[in-house]
């Protein structure tokens, strides 16, 4: 049996290179279906509209997309957070039908998105 570990402490300030967003999409037309690929395409074109080819040229990931609830978790580099978020906010239509994207939670830690106390409903 090895010796118990020696105490060690590390402090990381702003070490997370990513931010994570939990979002949901509302479509005016309830019957319309959308999958993860189209969903990402939609966000990319929203980014391109607002920031153009250069401004929108940053990667982001759709970590999760649920087709039935239209909720998603995105991952983006810190430098792209504000741009991605504003593009989502100003997204007003998808294939010429009105839509809206709301951001429910933003965090530099993906784990934090799994425990949002604002979702606690006891009534």
């Amino acid at each position: 049996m090895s010796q118990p570990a020696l105490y060690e402490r590390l402090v990381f300030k702003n070490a997370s290179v990513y931010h994570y967003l939990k979002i949901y999409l509302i479509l005016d037309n309830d019957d319309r279906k959308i999958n993860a690929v189209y969903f990402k395409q939609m966000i990319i074109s929203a980014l391109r509209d607002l920031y153009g080819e250069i401004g929108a040229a940053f990667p982001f990931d759709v970590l999760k997309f649920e087709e039935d609830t239209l909720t998603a978790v995105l991952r983006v580099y810190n430098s792209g957070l504000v741009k991605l978020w504003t593009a989502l906010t100003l997204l007003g239509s998808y294939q010429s039908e009105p839509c809206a994207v709301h951001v429910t939670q933003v965090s530099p830690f993906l784990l934090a998105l799994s425990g949002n106390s604002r979702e606690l409903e006891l009534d």
Partner: protein
Amino acid sequence: MFTNLEKCPRNLLVCEKSSLLNDKSRHATHVAKHFFNYKVSVLIPECGITPSGLKSVFNSFSKYYLLRNLPVYKLLEEEFLEKVVKKGSLYALSYKTRIDQDNTFALLPSGQVILSVDKDTYEELGLEGKASQYNHRQPMRYVVTLDMTDKSLAPGGKRYKRVMWALQEKVQLTSDFLMARYSIGGNGEDLLQSIFSQYSCRELRPSMSTQSLRDLLCPSLDPTDLHGDSRSCDPLQFLEWLGAVTMDMSCNNEASSFVSTYCCPEPQSSASQALLCTAVGLLLPEDIHSLLEELRRYFDEPRFTSWLSVTVHGFADSPVSWGATEHGFHKGGENFYTFVLFKNQDYWLHMATGTNDGCPP
């Protein structure tokens, strides 16, 4: 290009490595000081069925109460102070109040009452407090801390009377509260109900859920390599993976994949199954502590996995995070910690906070 749009708010992550066998290990203090816990989730790789010990610890989690429209001064009444607060281990947090918008109150087990109030209320109250650290241009939020164990606030005293007058007559502060009290026998809970019998009071139990995960990639962790130089992944990658697994995300994508490029960090190994147990509610630090003690014993028998993890999320709208450190809400009020327990009783502790929060202890 647009530099003004490329900044983002700060965050902190503190990682500690020690052993549960160390006399000076501070893990118990860290757990005890994180007062208001919203959710705990345990992940055990290579585990198919919930161990009976774990199940019984989860089932023994304290009940908590939802009190409607409780005036804040009720928390300061002499009877309540004597019978409940001074006995310790009482936790109360205002419910459905948002720390960045509303008046928020908390009663800490140490007997401190914290009133995080807006400027108008603060001025009307006329109680001594200090401006919140997280104000903009002008202070709009103030924090009043009343230490009820302090002699100067003893019932009957001048200061006590003034506080009661302020809360009873000047501004009738009321709120819904979540309240819980830890007691070994379990009789302390009836006491709460009897004291607040005139208010609507609902008894609640933390809600549990268990999930079995199949065929997943797990990072390999080496207890000596907290930093993640070669034998483990770095703490941030680990936490990201833990989040991805908890939220059931795909962790095996190609770098060229269109939708997501996320991958389980290296070094990794595959596990045929894993167990994920969660509890949600107002969870007491004492209960979290007994959960940890139980999980320690998990390694008494030979296991396939060399580690397991426990994540505890704090309330985003609590006025404190660790101890009496002021906590706020900027874009998200994250405050959580994750224990990684190893076979040899070593542990890692990752504590994270967001923007409007102090540094974890």
